[in-house]
C-alpha cells in the first residue's frame, strides 16, 4: 500500500501549482481511490484464495503421507475401514457422504425453496417480517443443540415409527441437516427471488398468467442463479457439518444399507476419531486424507450443480 500512496503524493505536489488545480486535484484523488479500491477488492479475493491455499497446504501435506502406508486403490475402493488393524478403505465413507447429501437435498430443497417462494411472492408483508428474522434465528442455534434434540426427540420418534431398536442412521442425519440448512437455502433464495424485477411479473400477469405460472415459468428461471447459489451454500454446509451429524448417525464404519442402519460419513468419522489417534500414524494421515477428500467432493458437487444450473437455469 505504501508505494501507490507515495506516487500519489508526488503527483499531488506537481499539480497544486497551476490554476484550476483544485479540479484536477480532485480528479486525481477520485481516480486514485478508484484504483485503490479495485486493488483492495482484488487483494480480498486473493486473501480468500490464500486461506483455501493454507487449508490445502496444511491438510494436504499430512494427507499425502497416507499413501506411503496405504495404496491409493485400497483407500478409494476398499470398503473395509478397520484402522486398528491397518485396513484403511474409505470408499464406504465417500458413498455414505454422497447418499447423505443427496437425501438431505431431496428433502431440504423443495421445503426451503417453497418457503422462499411463500415469503417472497405469496405471503403478506407482516408474514415476511415475522418469518425472516425467525429463520435467521435458526442459523444461530448451535449444531450441538440440534444434535441433542435429534438424539432425544427425533430418534425416539423414528424408533417408534420404524420399529427399529436404534433409529440412528442416514434418515435421522438427513432430517437434522434439513433443519440446519433450511434457513441458509431459504434466506438466500428469498433474496434472489425478491430481486427479480417487478416488470417481469407485471408482464407475465398482463399475459393472463396465474400466480403459480408466474412463479414457475418466470420468477424461478429469472432467480435461477441465486437459487442455485443458495442450494450450493446449503449443500456445502450439509457436507461440512459435524457436531450434529455425529450424534444421530450411529458412527459405525459400514455402508448404509437402509435409512436406519447405523453408519458413518466422512465428517462424522473424522470428528469421532481425530482426537484419539497418534499424530504420526497412518491412521491420522488417512483422516487428513478424508478431510482433503471432503474438499474434493464438494468441489466436484459444486461443478456438477453449476453444470445443471447452466443447462436448466440461466434464462436471463
Amino acid at each position, binding site marked *: 500500500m505504501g508505494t501507490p500512496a507515495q506516487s500519489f503524493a508526488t503527483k499531488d505536489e506537481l499539480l497544486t501549482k497551476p490554476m484550476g488545480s483544485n479540479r484536477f486535484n480532485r480528479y486525481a484523488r477520485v481516480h486514485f481511490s478508484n484504483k485503490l479500491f479495485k486493488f483492495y477488492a482484488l487483494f480480498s479475493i486473493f486473501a480468500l484464495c490464500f486461506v483455501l491455499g493454507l487449508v490445502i497446504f496444511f491438510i494436504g501435506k499430512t494427507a499425502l503421507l497416507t499413501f506411503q502406508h496405504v495404496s491409493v486403490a485400497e483407500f478409494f475402493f476398499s470398503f473395509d475401514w478397520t484402522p486398528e488393524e491397518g485396513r484403511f478403505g474409505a470408499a464406504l465413507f465417500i458413498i455414505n457422504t454422497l447418499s447423505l447429501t443427496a437425501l438431505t437435498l431431496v428433502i431440504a430443497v423443495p421445503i426451503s425453496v417453497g418457503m422462499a417462494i*411463500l415469503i417472497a411472492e405469496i405471503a403478506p408483508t407482516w408474514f415476511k417480517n415475522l418469518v425472516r428474522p425467525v429463520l*435467521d434465528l435458526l442459523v444461530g442455534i448451535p449444531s450441538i443443540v440440534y444434535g441433542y434434540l435429534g438424539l432425544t426427540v427425533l430418534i425416539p420418534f423414528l424408533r417408534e415409527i420404524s420399529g427399529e431398536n436404534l433409529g440412528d442412521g442416514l434418515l435421522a442425519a438427513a432430517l437434522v441437516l434439513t433443519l440446519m440448512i433450511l434457513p441458509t437455502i431459504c434466506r438466500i433464495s428469498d433474496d434472489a427471488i425478491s430481486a427479480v424485477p417487478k416488470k417481469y411479473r407485471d408482464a407475465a400477469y398482463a399475459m393472463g398468467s396465474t400466480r403459480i405460472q408466474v412463479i414457475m415459468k418466470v420468477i424461478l428461471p429469472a432467480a435461477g442463479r441465486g437459487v442455485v447459489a443458495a442450494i450450493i451454500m446449503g449443500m456445502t454446509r450439509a457436507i461440512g457439518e*459435524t457436531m450434529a451429524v455425529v450424534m444421530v448417525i450411529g458412527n459405525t464404519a459400514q455402508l448404509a444399507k437402509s435409512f436406519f442402519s447405523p453408519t458413518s460419513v466422512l465428517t462424522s468419522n473424522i470428528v469421532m476419531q481425530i482426537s484419539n489417534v497418534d499424530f504420526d500414524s497412518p491412521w491420522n494421515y488417512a483422516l487428513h486424507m478424508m478431510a482433503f477428500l471432503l474438499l474434493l467432493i464438494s468441489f466436484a458437487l459444486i461443478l456438477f450443480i453449476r453444470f445443471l444450473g447452466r443447462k436448466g437455469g440461466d434464462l436471463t
Partner: protein
Amino acid sequence: MSGFTRTPKITRSIRLNKIATVGFYTLGILVLTLIFWLLYTILSKGLPSLSWGFLTKLPEEMDVGGGIGPVLFNSFYILGISLALSIPIGIGAGIYMAEYAPKNKFTEVLRICVESLASVPSIVFGMLGLAIFASYFQVGLTILGGAVSLAFLNLPMLARVTEESIRAVPVDVRNASYALGTTKFQCIRTVVLPIAMRGIITGICLVAGRAFGESAVILLTAGLSTSGEMWDFNLFSPGETLAVHLWYVQSEAIVEDAKQIADRSAAVLVLVVLLINLLFRIPLWISNRKLKM
C-alpha cells in the same frame, strides 16, 4: 367476466393456482410450527431460570450455581474480532466477484475457490488453526487463534452473500450513476452498496449467528478454559466461548446442575442471536423508513 370465456384449460390453471397457494401456505405453516416448537423447547427450558447472576458469575466445576460470565464475554470478544477481520475482506472479495471480475475461466476458478472454501468443514478450520497457532507460532490455545480461525470460516459465506446482493442491484441504477460521470468506486460506494446493503446485512447476520454458535473451531483453537476472570482482553488468554461451554457441559461436566446450565446456555445462545439480528437490522429499518418518506 364479460367477453371472457373460461376454457377448460383456464379453469384448470385457476384450480391449480389455488391448490398451489394452499400448498405453499400449508408448507409455511408446518415449517413455522416446527421452528416455533424448536424455539419453544429450547427457550422454555432455559429462560425461566435465567438470572443476572448466571450471566455474570464464573463457571463452577463442583458446586451448583455456576455462571457463564467469562465464556459469554469471550463469545462476544471472539465474534467481534473475527467479524472485524472477515467483514472487510469478505465484502471486498464479494465486490470483486460481482463488479470487477471479467467473465472468463479465471473468474470461474475464483468462484469455485470461494464455494469450496465455504464447504470446508468447520473441524478442518479448527485443525488448520491448531496447526498454525499451536504448532507453528507456539502460542497455545488463545483467543487470537480462535478469532482468526473463525474469521476463516466466515469469509466465504460473506463473499458469496455480498456477491449475490450486489448482482441483484439493477443495471439501470448503475448506468444512471455512470452517466453522471462517477468512477466505478464512486458508483459502488454511493449507489450499489447502499442498495445491496440489505442483502449484505442479512449475510452478516447469518454469519454472525453461525459464528456465535460455532464450537468445533473454538474447541481446537481457543481451548476449553477461561482465564477465570471477567473482562480479560488479553488476546493470548484461553478463550472458551459459550457454545464450547455448552458442549463441555453437555458432554463431560460432572457438576450436579450441568443439565440446567446446558439448557440455560442454549437459551442464552438463541437470545443473543436474536439480539444480533435486531442490532444489525434496526438501523436498516430506520433508513428504510426514511427512504419511504
